[in-house]
């Protein structure tokens, strides 16, 4: 089974659907699970206790966890000086603390089997230092730093930890970003085009599978940075 957070929409939804199409058993976690066509539980990644209850239930049911895709995230495109403190907290809590919580809570289920793969989501905004995304980038830079160190901690247990860092992808997260801004970002990528959610799913599938057995502690940029 593979856990996908942020599974109700955007990249999380796309990754979850791709995995299901490929025959994987997926457990989605998201705040809104209404009408999701796959097994899902309601939960906020910022809430450690909820995640712990989910993990305890999985352990009791002896579910075999093979991977975790931490795709839950929020974005806010604002200059740092015009971002309210509450939004700063929310970005850090969901993007960084939420990712850490999921890793802390679900990794022990894979440690038992000494096998697993964890994918955390970053952004191209970290590598490019994009104007107007400083706090969002800070939260994701934290995810990258955490993932590199966590990869070393998990290596003894044969669990790989990698980051996927997409550029602009056509999802809800891009709403509110002008075409001009998107073009500015895309032009700085190695491959200057807007990629599709399917491209991110391809990469996640690769990182979850045995073909990526030699990769851990890496940040992979969709589009190149």
């Amino acid at each position: 089974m593979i856990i996908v957070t942020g599974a109700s929409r955007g990249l999380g939804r796309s990754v979850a659907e791709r995995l299901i199409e490929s025959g994987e058993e997926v457990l989605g976690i998201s705040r809104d699970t209404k009408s999701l066509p796959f097994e899902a539980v309601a939960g906020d990644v910022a809430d450690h206790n909820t995640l712990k209850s989910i993990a305890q239930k999985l352990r009791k049911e002896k579910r075999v966890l093979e991977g975790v895709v931490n795709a839950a995230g929020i974005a806010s495109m604002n200059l740092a000086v015009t971002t309210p403190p509450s939004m700063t907290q929310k970005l850090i809590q969901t993007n960084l603390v939420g990712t850490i919580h999921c890793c802390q809570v679900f990794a022990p289920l894979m440690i038992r089997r000494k096998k697993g793969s964890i994918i955390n989501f970053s952004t191209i905004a970290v590598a490019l230092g994009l104007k107007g995304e400083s706090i969002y980038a800070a939260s994701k830079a934290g995810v990258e730093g955490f993932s590199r160190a966590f990869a070393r901690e998990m290596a003894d247990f044969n669990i790989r930890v990698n980051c996927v860092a997409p550029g602009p992808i056509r999802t809800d997260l891009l709403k509110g970003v002008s075409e001009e801004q998107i073009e500015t970002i895309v032009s700085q990528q190695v491959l200057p085009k807007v990629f599709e959610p399917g491209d991110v799913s391809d990469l996640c599938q690769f990182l979850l599978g045995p073909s990526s057995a030699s990769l851990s502690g890496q940040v992979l940029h969709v589009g190149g940075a």
Partner: protein
Amino acid sequence: MTTCGYIIMNLKDSKNIVLACIVEITDDEIKPTDEMSLIGKDATLDSMKLVELCLALEDKAADLKFEFDWTSETAMSKSRSLFRTVSSLAEEFHVQSQNAQ
């Protein structure tokens, strides 16, 4: 002895469970004592073994019909960690088993 599905356990039982788990995860290479350090410069187990010990205790707790939570704020934020020694870990294991009843 059991009541309501829970197995009644005293502190000595808890300590014996912790000691047995250490022997098990180290393939009998370590002869643990009550005051053996689990963290810090004198730690006998490496970090990998410490995690394995926690998971082994989680399994034992499940057999005894309670949840052993080694990651809770209460367990981790005590001024003196539950991982200080075999005894302190056994005490926490015992307390959690009692709280579950």
